[in-house]
């Protein structure tokens, strides 16, 4: 069975400081992993995805994530936070078969950015 744990429900940073959102996964085989962002009253937007091509994945808006198999982690980072980064972030694992994939979401991390 696949599962995802986001280690922090809330993270607060000051504008211009680094962002770290932590995610651990459990997967019985090589997973596909994603980070999605959800702004208030909006749908989910894909930030980045890992599909075994490279362990360091670069996404949109300056975000990146590193896949560490030995630690079963897929933490999301950004060097410098911007006010517009304030949102809910979801770490997601994809699993299934050639008939289709299901996404299993973590509980989410709410990122707050202080001026």
């Amino acid at each position: 069975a696949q599962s995802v744990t986001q280690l922090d429900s809330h993270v607060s940073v000051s504008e211009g400081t680094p962002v770290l959102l932590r995610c651990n996964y459990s997967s019985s085989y090589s997973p596909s992993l994603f980070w999605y962002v959800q702004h208030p009253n909006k749908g989910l937007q894909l930030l980045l995805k890992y599909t075994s091509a490279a362990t360091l994945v670069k996404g949109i808006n300056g975000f990146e994530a590193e896949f560490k198999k030995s630690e079963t982690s897929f933490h999301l980072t950004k060097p410098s936070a911007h006010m517009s980064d304030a949102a809910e972030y979801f770490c997601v694992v994809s699993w299934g078969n050639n008939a289709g994939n299901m996404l299993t979401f973590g509980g989410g991390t709410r990122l707050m950015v202080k001026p």
Partner: protein
Amino acid sequence: DAGVTQSPTHLIKTRGQQVTLRCSPKSGHDTVSWYQQALGQGPQFIFQYYEEEERQRGNFPDRFSGHQFPNYSSELNVNALLLGDSALYLCASSHIIQGQGQETQYFGPGTRLLVL
């Protein structure tokens, strides 16, 4: 190029009623998945439709059913509504490449359902 669209944006129903939510996939996509997102939680997978058939299903009761049309659009139906069905219902579309699996899922803005 329009992304994934959903209608209506908001809906209010009473317990015991039935509701139908609609989704149009992104151009070029042939697969539609539905998710339920309760307040303060991550989305949970309901089911997925491909080639007009339900291909995968999450842990939801039979009150939740769906349909996919030849133009790939989809409906989610919920019967005998309960208060606990109040949530944001998200539709995601993707494309399946035969022998290679499914590409990334892209989400619509969702339909917010309130059951009174």
